[in-house]
């Protein structure tokens, strides 16, 4: 029979000295894991939160029956401090700290699949609600809040013109310049006009506008409606008997449908103007450039692009509003909704554009 091991603590037990003491004391406990251990704290003259934590940790160490840890000599002042905590509550502290178990893979897959499925269902439901609300607009146009439509159209349309002009011009210049260099090697720089005309009117103009619109306006719709949701304003509308879809979503859809084609037309024109600038620097006269475009591009290319932009506008505004209405509570929820609005609408734009490409190919447009 060996002597009972004693852990002797002395001096100050505070955040500076506890780390070393902790390691030493725990090592002793583990070394003598099957016999009773005594902690002698008679020489402790100061003890802060970390010191109490150390004592608590020693006393709550998991050990076989009979191999108890006893504390002796602690001054009454610190005993009162220690008495605030029940040692038994801290026996499972290791499990408590690491208590959040990692979710298993099948669980995770299932949960995410379920969430995606629910999201898809909500999107379909929302589309249905929007269609129904739009049908009611056609029947009774006076029920629409036209004042809201106008102010939203101004904010989403007129105020977006500078950024649309800037980016479209840049796109036109870059496209023309980058394609002119290789084409010049074949003496075919005039055909840059064909390339630009076709690509911009059919694809790039509408897509460029849509991406700006989703980042600028789709996000704004989600944030605005999301904040209203967090502030219980949506609840207030519902208990007043006002349908949030009619009240908030329909004006935004109408405004988007009105301004998106206009922005796309501006984008088209500015893009081509940017190209013209580069071409005239390469000694292709503007009239030649214009004639080349007009001779090559068909009206349906232009109209098709604009039709696409209307659909993009609907998708972006609808997604923005839906994500806003789906907002949970708290400030971070609004941020999440905004992010989701932009990501979803850009995804939908890509999908819709692909469908349009297939459609126009099949129709021979």
């Amino acid at each position, binding site marked *: 029979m060996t002597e009972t091991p004693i852990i002797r603590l002395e001096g100050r037990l505070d955040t500076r000295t506890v780390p070393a003491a902790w390691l030493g004391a725990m090592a002793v406990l583990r070394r003598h894991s099957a016999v009773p251990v005594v902690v002698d704290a008679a020489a402790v003259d100061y003890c802060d939160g970390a010191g109490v934590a150390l004592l608590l940790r020693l006393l709550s160490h998991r050990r076989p029956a009979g191999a108890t840890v006893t504390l002796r000599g602690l001054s009454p002042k610190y005993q009162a401090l220690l008495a605030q905590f029940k040692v038994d509550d801290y026996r499972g502290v290791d499990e408590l700290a690491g208590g959040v178990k990692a979710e298993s893979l099948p669980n995770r897959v299932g949960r995410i699949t379920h969430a995606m499925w629910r999201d898809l269902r909500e999107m379909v439901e929302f589309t249905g609600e929007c269609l129904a609300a739009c049908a009611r607009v056609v029947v009774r146009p006076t029920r629409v809040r036209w004042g809201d439509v106008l102010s939203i159209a101004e904010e989403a349309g007129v105020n977006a013109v500078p950024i649309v002009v800037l980016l479209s011009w840049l796109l036109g210049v870059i496209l023309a310049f980058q394609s002119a260099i290789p084409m010049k090697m074949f003496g075919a720089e005039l055909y840059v006009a064909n390339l630009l005309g076709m690509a911009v009117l059919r694809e790039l103009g509408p897509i460029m506008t849509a991406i700006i619109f989703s980042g600028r306006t789709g996000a704004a719709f989600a944030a605005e409606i999301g904040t209203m949701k967090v502030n*219980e304003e949506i609840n207030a509308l519902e208990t007043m008997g006002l349908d949030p879809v009619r009240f908030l979503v329909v004006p935004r859809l109408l405004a988007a449908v009105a301004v998106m084609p206009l922005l796309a037309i501006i984008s088209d024109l500015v893009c081509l103007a940017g190209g013209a600038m580069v071409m005239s620097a390469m000694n292709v006269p503007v009239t030649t450039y214009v004639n080349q475009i007009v001779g090559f591009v068909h009206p349906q290319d232009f109209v098709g692009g604009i039709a696409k932009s209307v659909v993009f506008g609907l998708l972006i505004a609808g997604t923005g509003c839906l994500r806003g209405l789906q907002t949970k509570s708290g400030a971070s929820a609004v941020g999440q909704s905004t992010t989701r609005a932009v990501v979803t609408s850009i995804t939908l734009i890509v999908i819709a554009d692909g469908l349009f490409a297939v459609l126009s190919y099949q129709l021979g447009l």
Partner: protein
Amino acid sequence: MSDQDPIIRVEDLTVGYDGDILLDHLHFEVRPGEVFVILGGSGCGKSTLLKHMIGLYQPMSGGVLIGGDDIVTAAGEARLAILRRFGVMYQSGALFGSMTLLENVRLPLEEFTHLDDEAKNLDALMKLDLVGLRLFAGHLPSAISGGMQKRAGIARAMALDPIILFLDEPSAGLDPITSAELDQTILRLARNLGVTFVVVTHELPSIFTIADRVIMLDKVRQGIVAEGKPQDLREHSPDPWVRNFFNRHVEGTAP
């Protein structure tokens, strides 16, 4: 419907989230013209109960009869008719931030009445006057204090002259003086206009000032632990926990 009939009857209502029951088989009634207070500690489900009573959430089972019709099952025009019987003031006021106070109060009038503009403006201004905000009609919600926002919320809830007003934590976040003013506003409206109030709160001073009757909810027992006049409960409740609840706080807060 006679005066003795309850104006709101909550029948066997069970509410919860994601399958976890929060309040189990509640049953209580609110009588016309009284100020009825739902109280309890944080997290006991009083705001949740309120949102079920106004039809925002779907209960797990049971019904809420407002003026004799069940809001849980009503749909379409019938539901709209029930919604018209009450107004709600939300905890944050929930005023529409882009509209002035007058426009906020006028909104329900625009949507549900055919009054001409002058009449709508005057009606809305009167409602603001009732809560002492006539001079702030042109202000945006962000330009006035929290207490004023709540009062404006009450004005908007009263826009269509409902017979019931639901108030969600009217005193939360207000200083004692503003809170007492709001209590006086509530009492005045209840006594002068005969509106029935259903108020969710946990502010004891406010309860003793305004409440005709209270129900007290408890998280552990998942239901009503006391019902009656607050003064009676403080003195004579058979449940010592309830007596303590009222007394302890009163000792600390009485002038």
